[in-house]
């Protein structure tokens, strides 16, 4: 019972962090048709931003500032690095994204050094639930992630801008013919994705209170895996893939024999799913244009 409850709560919590990061990958892919491999590193920047702002303001305000900082960073990266390559070959864009990723990691090392920094955002303590001791921060992570994901889903489904995002992801040219400014929609997408990455940075600090320049690397790749498993380009797919990966990770780390192979297991799932369903769980088959 104890094991079950803690596995479910932790699995949901880790899964929802992956889901939030995966949303950034999948939305950018769906709308700008590119893989933003620097996305994971925005998580790291978010964590460092919280570290810096905590020295001046209270935790809540520091988080808010960090989110705004990452939002502006994401928009700037898109404008400076990716926009000039609109229409260039996908390989050029991919290499640029990897370059931006290394740039962010190197900048962080130059500014903050290579040793990791301790960041205590807030100590929520622990509570007993159904006889199980749980970190409150885990529950907070889960709650915030769920609220954010519901809000995002409603935003995309119900607002003018959200529908324009769907239109752009489906057919850029036709969207322009409706009077939709595609560049503006891409900017908004990067803003949303980077804000979610900043929140993910916060969640990692709540899990383990330290940040180094490579903090975002592994979560980035894991969340990308989640996005592909769920079907890249699909918003519910990213959520599903994230949760699935979170559960697998949580269960695997609890079984002593396979615990060291947790990462290998997660990536193997990706390979198996790509073999069986190349478009992921909720991905669309690409229609052939006549």
């Amino acid at each position, binding site marked *: 019972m104890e094991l079950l409850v803690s596995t479910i709560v932790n699995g949901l919590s880790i899964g929802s962090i992956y889901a939030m990061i995966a949303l950034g990958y999948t939305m950018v892919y769906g709308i700008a048709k590119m893989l933003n491999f620097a996305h994971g590193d925005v998580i790291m920047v978010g964590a460092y931003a919280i570290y810096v702002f905590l020295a001046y303001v209270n935790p809540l305000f520091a988080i808010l500032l960090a989110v705004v900082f990452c939002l502006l960073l994401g928009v700037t990266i898109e404008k400076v690095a990716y926009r000039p390559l609109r229409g260039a070959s996908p390989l050029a864009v991919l290499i640029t994204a990897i370059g931006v990723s290394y740039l962010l990691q190197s900048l962080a090392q130059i500014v903050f050094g290579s040793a990791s920094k301790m960041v205590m955002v807030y100590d929520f303590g622990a509570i007993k639930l159904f006889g199980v001791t749980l970190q409150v921060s885990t529950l907070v992570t889960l709650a915030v992630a769920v609220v954010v994901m519901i809000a995002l889903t409603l935003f995309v489904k119900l607002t*003018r801008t959200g*529908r*324009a995002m*769907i*239109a752009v992801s*489906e*057919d850029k*040219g*036709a*969207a*322009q*013919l*409706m*009077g*939709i*400014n*595609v560049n503006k929609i891409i900017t908004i997408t990067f803003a949303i994705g980077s804000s979610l990455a900043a929140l993910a940075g916060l969640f990692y600090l709540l899990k383990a209170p330290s940040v180094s320049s490579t903090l975002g690397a592994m979560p980035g790749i894991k969340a990308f895996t989640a996005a592909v498993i769920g079907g890249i380009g699909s918003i519910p797919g990213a959520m599903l893939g994230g949760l699935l990966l979170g559960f697998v990770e949580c269960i695997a780390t609890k079984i002593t024999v396979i615990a060291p192979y947790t990462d290998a297991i997660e990536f193997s799932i990706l390979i198996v799913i790509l073999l069986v369903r190349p478009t992921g769980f909720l991905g*669309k088959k690409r*229609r052939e*244009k*006549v």
Partner: protein
Amino acid sequence: MALLEVKNLEVYYGVINALKGISFEVNEGEIVTLIGANGAGKSTTMQSVVGLIPKRNGSVIFDGKDISHTPCHKIVHLGMTQVPEGRRIFQELTVYENLLMGAFSIKDSSGFKKDLDAIYTRFPRLAERKNQIAGTLSGGEQQMLAMGRAIMSHPKLLMLDEPSMGLSPLLVDQVFEIIKDINSDGTTILLVEQNAGKSLAISDRAYVLENGSIVLSGTGAELMASDTVKEAYLGG
């Protein structure tokens, strides 16, 4: 007065000269057609006029404004809307949501309900299927939706690129009826068609495009009577 004036329009795809400096105009209230064979440059003309593909040279004056360098999404706000070749409706959205996207350029939403009702009256099939995912519509229904979506933006000039393509003869007739109908409501029409006979019959004026140049122009009736057109486009 010319609503649309295209002067010396030149378009290149890489080194290929797709449009070799064409000039034409569309006057207010007219139906004007560009006819021509496959690859003559009809769709290229439509797409470069509306700013979807870049122009090498030439100018486009719309409603008294030079829009040669205006990005596509802004041109729509000026009152020029295009029904693209192949319809390109949003397959994943419902019929209603597609129409909503059509009204994207209309900032004032107070008239939306009225516009929507007008579309549903004009295209009863769309009313029946308003909550259906647009990708599941038949080809004819998709064409109706593409036209309805375009009308939602209150265009002064409606451009239609091959609206009859891939439709059954019965539906083709219906599409041309609808175009005439939209025109009689005061919307100027620029039409691109391979179906020369049907389109010349409803056109005030027409241009014949061949290998990126305009080789002939005149009223619809004149061109229908022309030997060149008869031979090349009307099956002798």
